[in-house]
């Protein structure tokens, strides 16, 4: 059976002439029905752009220069006039900032009812009923009253639930989440994650979850893809990737996280900075910051290679990571 979402060799470019660079370079991933893929990386690594390309919502100045996207086996156009129509009832997106993602002059209930009415063609009464249903499903307390409120009258957590309800309102099979918990308090974060987990179980949704927080990914996703400088550098089952990373960057991310279970371990940040997108290092893009780097790392254009069952990594020295991880 075809995966719910399959992305093959996606590439997105920005700028022109001397200022041209690839924000997303040769990205491939797939999610099964009911599966959840976490897409992790620093700011600027291209994870959000990847989502937006899949959604057909690239900002001006960005263009898709390669790759295919299939939803449930059907190809989705990545540019041109049919972009939005093709995604109706297939893909939906939850955005990062609920305080700016909702229309400030429209009542919340109307915003949730809008897609059922205009896109799914429900009557006004049934669209309203559906909106209340969705709000309740997303855990919004007292949905009738909340539906009449305006966004600024609701708390951050409730707003994000509304955003999720809006995403669900167009009846999708795939839910793309662009850092939906980043702007929220930690306790609310946990609630939203639980909500997404429940929705996934109940509705069989496929989820792609973009975040820069490994902690969040561990809670929700069964597979994990790590991005660096527009490329996927490691991909595999979440538990495996987190327990035994196959790429030095992933290990770096783990080390720079605060670990509550082992208070003596202090976070260690990754040395150096992400390179200027216009001046990509030769060979492996991570090598200037990598302690494992050898001379071959600066000349070989390293590709994702299988390193175990269902795991891939783009590192020439991934075996040496086993020792490094166990050392702490």
């Amino acid at each position, binding site marked *: 059976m075809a995966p719910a979402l399959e992305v093959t060799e996606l590439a997105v470019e920005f700028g022109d002439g001397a200022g041209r660079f690839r924000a997303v370079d040769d990205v491939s991933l797939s999610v099964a029905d009911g599966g959840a893929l976490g897409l992790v990386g620093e700011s600027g690594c291209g994870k959000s752009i990847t989502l937006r390309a899949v*959604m057909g*919502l690239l900002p001006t100045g960005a263009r898709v220069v390669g790759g295919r996207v299939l939803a449930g086996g059907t190809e989705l156009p990545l540019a041109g006039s049919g972009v*939005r*129509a093709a*995604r*109706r*009832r297939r893909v*939906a*997106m939850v*955005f*990062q*900032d609920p305080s*700016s*993602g*909702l*229309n*400030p*002059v*429209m009542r919340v209930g109307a915003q949730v009812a*809008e*897609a059922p009415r*205009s*896109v799914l063609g429900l009557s006004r009464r049934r669209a309203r009923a559906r909106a209340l249903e969705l709000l309740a499903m997303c855990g919004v307390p007292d949905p009738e009253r909340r539906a009449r409120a*305006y966004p*600024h*009258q609701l708390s951050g957590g409730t707003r994000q639930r509304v*955003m999720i309800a*809006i*995403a669900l*309102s*167009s009846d999708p099979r795939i839910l793309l989440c662009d850092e939906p918990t980043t702007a929220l308090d930690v306790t609310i974060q946990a609630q939203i994650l639980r909500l997404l987990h429940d929705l996934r179980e109940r509705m069989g949704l496929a989820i792609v979850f973009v975040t820069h927080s490994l902690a969040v990914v561990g809670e929700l996703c069964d597979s994990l893809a790590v991005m660096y400088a527009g490329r996927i550098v490691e991909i595999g089952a979440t538990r495996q990737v987190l327990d035994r990373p196959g790429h030095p960057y992933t290990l770096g991310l783990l080390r720079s996280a605060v670990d509550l279970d082992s208070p003596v371990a202090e976070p260690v940040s990754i040395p150096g900075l992400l390179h200027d997108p216009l001046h990509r290092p030769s060979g492996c893009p991570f090598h200037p910051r990598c302690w494992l780097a050898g001379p071959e790392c600066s000349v070989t254009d390293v590709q994702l290679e299988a390193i175990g069952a269902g795991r891939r990594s783009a590192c020439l020295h991934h075996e040496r990571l086993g020792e490094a991880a166990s050392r702490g």
Partner: protein
Amino acid sequence: MRKTWRYAVTRLAHSVPVVFGVTIVTFLLLHLIPGDPARKLVGPHAGPAAVAAVRRQLGLDGSLVNQFGVFLSRLAHGDTGRSFFYGVSTRSLVISRLSVTAALVGLAALFCVILTLPLATLAAVHKDRLADHAIRVIPLVGLGMPAFWIGILFIIVFSVNLGWFPVGGWGVTLGDHLRALVLPALTAALGIIPLLIRSLRAGVLDVLKADFVATARAKGLREMRVLFRHVTRNALIPTVALLGLNIAYLIGSTVIVERVFDLNGLGSLMLDAVGNRDFPVVEGVTLVFAVAVVALNLFTDLVSAQLDPRIRLG
């Protein structure tokens, strides 16, 4: 509902000191006249009795504070003085001319909205393409165009050459009145439309970049619906606010526009009074204009609150 009332009352309360300040300034205008104001107003040839009469009529005897008190009490009774030239009360003159100016301002405001909104939205949606560049020429060139010159150009093209509208005057029937108002209202509107287009275009650009527009698009809505239901409604808010800020200028431009098109409104009353050295009328009309501005600002504040729930519901 109660919160909306509270907002309205707050705005009203803020207007009161401004109106008070306006009366003080208007009162002081008279006293800015160098030398003896009564003598200046009456002219060098009048005898001392006439000067004394004027001084009494204007309430110039007594201390400054005293005079202000008299001024205020007269105002409270709706008495804004008596015209030197026409001999009737200023109030009756104002009332007879009010409808013309009110209609002019109303039609001009309407032109502002129906011309600015589509042009600014079009420019923003087609940013940096031909339509945008063409529309952006309007603020560049338009801001430097004197209103009276635009009016004259309109007269040349539409009245003298094409004969669609009268050269001036008010006409007799309602139809005449409307036809007589079109060019003057358009002229007055063009005084601020360039400014409105420039600001609103920036406002619409901001809205287009907003996340909730992406949300709307992600829902799968057709672009037209996104534009109308989401973009325009939000862009209308700064438009109205901007219109409110500029309504004073719009009202003031009636002084010029009524002269160009020979309309009998408050603006030309003001100019005639200036020409006739008719101080009470100048003072009275100035006061009426200022109070009208405060009232209209209050009105646009309330309209803004109606459009933007964040304002009225805190």
